[in-house]
């Protein structure tokens, strides 16, 4: 069946900011969909608030709305663009939910818009737990048994029918509170009674517990002719009970016999047909009782999902691309398989390798949070590794995580388990945590039988035996003399995935010595190809992985090759922004006649799509693995400065002549404290006083010299890991401890002379400013943008909202900042990107805010904080705000082009040389924080970055753009009601100004005593004075919040500890889903936004229109 001609334009809903559980995989899928639909001749309209995505590049869609993903905003986009259809299945849960809202609101019907991919009934059937279960029973599929009870007698009867153990869930309780597991009849009595008591309607759901069962997932595609294929099968190493996003998963399934697998396959097709997924990709999850083989259906997603991205990367089958074409009417057999080019997409990929996905968590960022894994996903990123065996892929995956691990133990970090006795270690492994995989190896190495470890953990015996193979080999290696290793011995170790660094640890030698000995024994890596067909057909797509086999499949290149090192797993501080930069580099250099080669291990990304670059190596980003790729590819150069800290850390291992752009020595010079200080002094650019320290004593000495408060941070980390502002000696000591062996960072090596701790005077009441710029080999500098942070200095720049252009800085200050940036770029000999951070001191008595350009600060108030000659996370935001593809420009500059040449080509606007263009709109970036996943962690901002993603909003005034950015980030500021305020002293000035505006706009104010007094004195009436927690008299803030009497909470922390005063209030606000503002500056910005909202209307306008207005102005 050919493509549908009855539709001409299609709206694609993206997934918005990166949050836990919904990351850049939807950029990957959405980008693919936009491209294929445009190639099919459709007009594509895209809505997504996330500027760091490739899909929101203005070339990807015909009209790109970087607007809040909110049903009302989408309705305005639909009214404006009049699409014929909405494709909701590529934007994750966000896209699906919004589509359902648009259906419920009648917007689609009113505008004659059709849902394609999945209709509303199908979505409802898949998403509603009860409807889904009923549907499964209807088609004869097994589901976990369950019963509903309203009294104990019925409950007992249901329990007997369901069979112990059971999970008891009280009805109508949000967030799973009050749920419990009962393994015995006695336990059931109390759990059920508690549940009946907890439920407001005295009703409980009693469900068969399948915790500990084996978990599987099938990725399935269906076309409108009802052809179905399984793209990929996945088996979880972690049994049921751990969210699949937090599980180590393996493709293909390992322990299902063919009749069992085929039964699952048939069931998956039946699920798609019953739910009514007419076209596209879905995943279906199953649990299997390991003792009886009983299969139950757990859930399905009628859309492209995170596992679809994994399945696409694992098999080479581009699910999203094909799902998009199926949605417009093609059938699977009409679509060619990209990789073989001769076979159609209506087939099932077959693998001749093993793929392992391992999550990466960020618990170290949320100190109070427990590391126990459960049914709510907590990981922030993941890696994927390919090997010819499970052992090889597992070890490659573990070293891809970049958490200091060299593989499955056999590294310095393994000693952490030594202090535990056997029983303690077994008990620890029985609880799923990020450490469990390493604990399993340690247990088996101690000689614990597979059976015992299986009994304690539920991990399948086959996986445990594979881990035991690694133990066996490790023991043999320990007993071996490296000099006595023969070819067979080396090959056996490498085929089980041991890294040279692990062997060096076992033999107490250096990785380079291991490498030399191995190579002299003739054992070298070979590169194989991911080809969807296990070599049955010739592959035309160069998508490779390393392994230790007989022969290699790398074809010689015809053009000069540039290697681009990617940014590895997403983590807080290093996410999609860097992948965006790498993708742009590939695009720019391919267009300039290079063959580009990507090395990366993150399956969620656009960069690991096999057609983003000319060649793809799915490999860990470690010195050994990238050296192998360099040896195989013989590139003219390597780009290390676009992927964040990961590739930069590898730069030192490379021959300097291979590093493109800014020389590694300059990158180090910027990091080296003394060098940097000397440079600033020489240039006469003021910086906050400070120094470097490698010990307590040195840190104290620096702080004494410069005076408190000081900012303490480790060098060589991104995202403000372990960064702190300290106000006295005790706090300084605690901060230093965190960086040494006691703290999380200490485990990764701690401070040393080559990686000291930096201690700087912290400028309170300063505005922070970021600049992104590019310098070419002739010395010309293009300023990308000057960004003014909304939150004051002290909040990590990655967690701060910011605006382009600056809204309160004088032209004079901005000019000084630009000039400083140029001189620093020259002094650091930058060729490529440079990010510089400044702090602009404010006079605390002066007015501040976003309303007017403010001349309170002069050129003398500008201090430089730091400079980084590499891509920063703001590059995509700058590009979207200004229309200048800064990362592309940088990539070209790094291979020798000049800015003048790029202006001639049209890549850069012919604007007044080197200055950012003047716009008639303001772009605001706002961040998204994951506190809802870590209920124990306090939701305050600080110098340690904790946001997972960002959104962007553009509008005519800073206030409107800010309010839209809040909405895009999930904070809907109220139009009326009561604002609760409780401000720290330093925030009261801003708080007062905000309160005046709230009052003028008709809001009621509630405040704690101190704040209320201050507001009264400032002439703002406070309607409700709120008692402090612990006061006997009066209602306190938590009461008011829980009673629904507050619509906006403004609470800036007074204390400096994580359990400071306002924590209960912030926590209550979080639970109640109220908008929460935690800094004075943000409170003021919110007030201005609400003020503008009263008089003006937010604009809905495409990025292309904004950019056209820019070009027009230039």
């Amino acid at each position, binding site marked *: 069946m050919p493509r549908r001609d009855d539709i001409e334009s299609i709206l694609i809903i993206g997934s918005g900011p990166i949050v836990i559980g919904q990351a850049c995989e939807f950029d990957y899928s959405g980008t693919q969909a936009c491209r294929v639909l445009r190639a099919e001749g459709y007009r594509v309209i895209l809505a997504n608030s996330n500027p760091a995505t490739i899909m929101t590049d203005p070339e990807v869609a015909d009209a790109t709305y970087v607007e809040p993903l909110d049903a009302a905003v989408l309705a305005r986009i639909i009214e404006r663009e009049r699409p014929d259809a909405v494709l909701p299945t590529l934007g994750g849960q966000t896209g699906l939910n919004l589509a359902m809202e648009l259906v419920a609101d009648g917007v689609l019907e009113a505008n004659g818009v059709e849902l394609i991919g999945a209709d509303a009934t199908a979505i409802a059937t898949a998403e509603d737990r009860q409807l889904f279960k009923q549907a499964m029973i209807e088609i004869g599929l097994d589901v976990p048994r369950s019963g509903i009870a309203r009294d104990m007698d019925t409950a007992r009867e249901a329990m007997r029918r369901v069979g112990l153990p059971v999970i008891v869930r009280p009805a109508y309780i949000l967030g799973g509170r009050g749920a419990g597991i009962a393994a015995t009849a006695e336990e059931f009595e109390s759990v059920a009674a508690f549940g009946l008591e907890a439920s407001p309607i005295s009703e409980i759901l009693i469900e068969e517990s399948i915790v500990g069962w084996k978990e599987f997932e099938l990725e399935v595609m269906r076309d409108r*002719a*009802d*052809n179905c*294929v399984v793209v990929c*099968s996945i088996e979880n190493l972690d049994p049921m009970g751990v969210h699949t996003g937090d599980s180590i998963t393996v493709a*293909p*399934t*390992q*322990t*299902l*016999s*063919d*009749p*069992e*697998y*085929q039964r699952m*396959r*048939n069931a998956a097709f039946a699920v798609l047909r019953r739910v009514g997924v007419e076209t596209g990709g879905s995943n279906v999850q199953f649990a299997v009782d*390991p*003792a*009886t*083989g009983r299969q139950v259906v757990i859930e399905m997603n009628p859309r492209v999902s995170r596992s679809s991205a994994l399945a696409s990367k694992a098999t080479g089958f581009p699910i999203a691309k094909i799902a998009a074409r199926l949605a417009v009417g093609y*059938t*699977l*057999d009409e679509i060619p398989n990209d990789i073989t080019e*001769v*076979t*159609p997409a*209506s*087939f*099932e*990929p*077959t*693998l*001749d*390798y*093993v793929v392992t996905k391992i999550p990466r968590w960020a618990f170290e960022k949320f100190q109070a949070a427990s590391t126990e894994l459960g049914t709510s996903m907590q990981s922030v990123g993941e890696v994927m590794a390919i090997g*010819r*065996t*499970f052992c090889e892929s597992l070890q490659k995956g573990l070293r891809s995580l970049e958490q200091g691990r060299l593989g499955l133990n056999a590294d310095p970090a393994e000693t952490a388990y030594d202090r535990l006795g056997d029983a303690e270690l077994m008990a620890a492994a029985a609880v799923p945590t990020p450490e469990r995989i390493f604990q399993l190896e340690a247990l088996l190495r101690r000689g614990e039988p*597979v059976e015992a470890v299986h009994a304690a953990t539920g991990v*399948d*015996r*086959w996986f445990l*035996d594979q881990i*035991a*193979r690694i133990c*066996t080999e490790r023991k043999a290696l320990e007993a071996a003399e490296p000099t006595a290793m023969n070819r067979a011995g080396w090959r056996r170790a490498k085929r089980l995935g041991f890294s040279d660094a692990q062997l060096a640890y076992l033999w107490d030698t250096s990785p380079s010595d291991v490498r030399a000995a191995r190579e002299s024994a003739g054992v070298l890596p070979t590169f*194989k190809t991911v080809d969807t*067909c*296990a*070599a*049955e*057909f*010739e592959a035309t797509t160069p998508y490779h992985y390393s392994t230790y*086999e*007989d*022969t290699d*499949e790398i074809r010689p290149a015809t053009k000069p090759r540039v290697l681009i090192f990617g940014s590895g797993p997403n983590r807080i501080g290093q996410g999609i922004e860097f992948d965006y930069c790498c993708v742009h580099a590939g695009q720019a250099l391919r267009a300039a006649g290079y063959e580009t080669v990507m090395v990366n291990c993150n399956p969620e990304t656009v960069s690991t799509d096999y057609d983003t670059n000319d060649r793809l190596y799915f490999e860990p980003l470690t010195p050994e693995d990238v050296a192998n790729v360099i040896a195989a590819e013989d590139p003219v150069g390597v780009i290390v400065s676009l992927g964040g800290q990961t590739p930069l850390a590898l730069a030192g291992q490379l021959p300097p002549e291979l590093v493109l752009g800014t020389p590694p020595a300059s990158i180090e010079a910027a990091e080296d404290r003394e060098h940097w200080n000397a440079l600033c002094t020489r240039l006469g650019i003021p910086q906050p006083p400070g120094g470097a320290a490698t010990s307590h004593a040195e840190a104290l000495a620096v702080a004494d010299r410069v005076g408190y408060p000081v900012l303490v941070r480790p060098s060589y980390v991104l995202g403000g890991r372990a960064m702190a502002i300290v106000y006295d000696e005790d706090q300084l000591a605690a901060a230093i401890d965190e960086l040494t062996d006691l703290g999380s960072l200490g485990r990764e090596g701690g401070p040393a002379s080559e990686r000291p701790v930096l201690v700087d005077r912290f400028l309170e009441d300063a505005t922070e400013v970021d600049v992104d710029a590019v310098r070419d080999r002739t010395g010309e500098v293009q300023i990308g943008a000057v960004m003014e942070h909304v939150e004051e200095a002290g909040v990590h720049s990655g967690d701060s909202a910011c605006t382009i252009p600056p809204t309160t800085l004088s032209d004079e200050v901005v000019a000084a900042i630009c000039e400083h940036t140029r001189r620093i770029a020259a002094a650091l000999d930058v060729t490529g990107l440079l990010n510089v951070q400044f702090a602009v001191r404010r006079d605390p008595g002066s007015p501040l805010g976003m309303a007017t350009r403010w001349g309170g600060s002069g050129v003398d108030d500008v201090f430089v904080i730091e400079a980084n000659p590499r891509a920063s996370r703001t590059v995509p935001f700058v590009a979207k705000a200004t229309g200048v593809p800064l990362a592309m420009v940088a990539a070209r500059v790094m291979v020798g082009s000049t800015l003048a040449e790029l202006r001639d080509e049209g890549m850069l606007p012919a604007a007044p040389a080197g200055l950012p263009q003047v716009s008639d709109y303001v772009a605001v970036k706002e961040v998204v924080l994951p506190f809802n996943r870590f209920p124990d962690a306090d939701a305050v901002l600080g110098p340690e970055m904790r946001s997972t993603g960002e959104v962007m909003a553009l509008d005519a005034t800073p206030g409107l753009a800010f309010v839209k950015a809040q909405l895009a980030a999930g904070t809907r500021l109220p139009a009326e009601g009561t604002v609760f305020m409780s401000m720290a002293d330093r925030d009261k000035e801003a708080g007062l100004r905000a309160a005046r505006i709230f009052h003028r706009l008709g809001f009621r104010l509630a405040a704690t005593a101190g704040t209320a007094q201050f507001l009264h004195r400032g002439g703002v009436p406070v309607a409700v004075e709120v008692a402090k927690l612990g006061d006997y008299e009066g209602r306190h803030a938590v009461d008011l919040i829980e009673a629904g009497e507050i619509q906006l909470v403004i609470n800036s922390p007074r204390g400096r500890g994580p359990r400071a005063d306002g924590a209960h209030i912030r926590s209550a606000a979080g639970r109640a889903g109220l908008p929460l503002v935690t800094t004075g500056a943000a409170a003021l910005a919110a007030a201005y936004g609400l003020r503008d909202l009263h008089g003006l209307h937010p604009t809905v306008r495409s990025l292309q229109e904004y950019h056209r207005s820019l070009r027009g102005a230039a």
Partner: protein
Amino acid sequence: MTAPEPTPALLVLCDGEVFEGEAMGAPGVEVASGEVVFNTVMSGYQEVISDPSYAGQITTFTYPHIGNYGTNDADSEAARPHCRGVIVRDLARRHSNWRATGSLDDFLRRHGIGGITGIDTRRLTRHIRDAGAMPGAFGTADEATLLAAARAEPGTSGVDLVGEVTTAEPYLSGSGPRRVVAYDLGIKSTILSCLGELATVTVVPAHTPADEVLARRPDGVFLSNGPGDPELAGPAIEALRGLVGTVPVFGICLGHQLLALALGGRTFKMRFGHHGGNVPVRCTASGRIEITSQNHNFAVEAGSVPGVTETHVCLNDSALEGLSVDGADAFGVQYHPEAGPGPHDARHHFAAFAEMMDRRRATA
């Protein structure tokens, strides 16, 4: 955990390619030879190894981990394997599955089948893909001995392999309401269980003449899968000429090839055949796609068979995958609708056979 030291072994192809590995399965295999083929299924190794169609062949699995879920009594396609050996990348040390009654290694030992593990099976597969399926030999012997054995190995052309695997005497199977006579050319037990649901099946030797079959008054005749060159199965081809048009006939794989030959068509040996569980086939009448299980080195030449409708085509290489005889109740498919291993998408062919028999009975 003291695993015995692995015994080094080699695989040598008749063109001189050498692969290093370790011996597995039946111990003491110095030289075993056969035609080396590869199969791309990711599950179903027990079914493949025990499929009589692999007589004369050494089977390579492209999926690296083989033996993970052990073996059991239900999944064998015949009482014993007929293949000459098994080549894998990584034999499971320990298996894990509730259905398992033993390991794959023990299964191979019990049946005297040798194998070799640790092989770069992707290199081997690419070699066969480019150079074609070819004779080879593996074992613990030296390279020269193995090369000589590989060169002396005739492969599957011109060898009567069906004679090795067919039943000596007729026997009954299944309990369905109809009566089917099934030619055992190397019949798989999954086919027997699919047929057995429809009919009481009399399984007869490959050389049984048509009149003996018709004397059993069957509702339909089935021709099974089997090994080797279809042109060597003369008696069965001859018998078919007396059956087509008289009773409903259904052929699978080799049975389908014999049907084509009986009707005057031609068969040929493919370069490396179709061996896997993921082959897309289009039904030309409905346009529907089936993902099929396949295992054949020979195929019917498209357009060579007079008086038939070509009903199914392979989407990978346009090979002829199915035909039905014009004006007669007879059809064949090149693939394996019974699966075992592989997808069940095409099981409806058995129902179609039953319908054909019922229609015939109603009009007779």
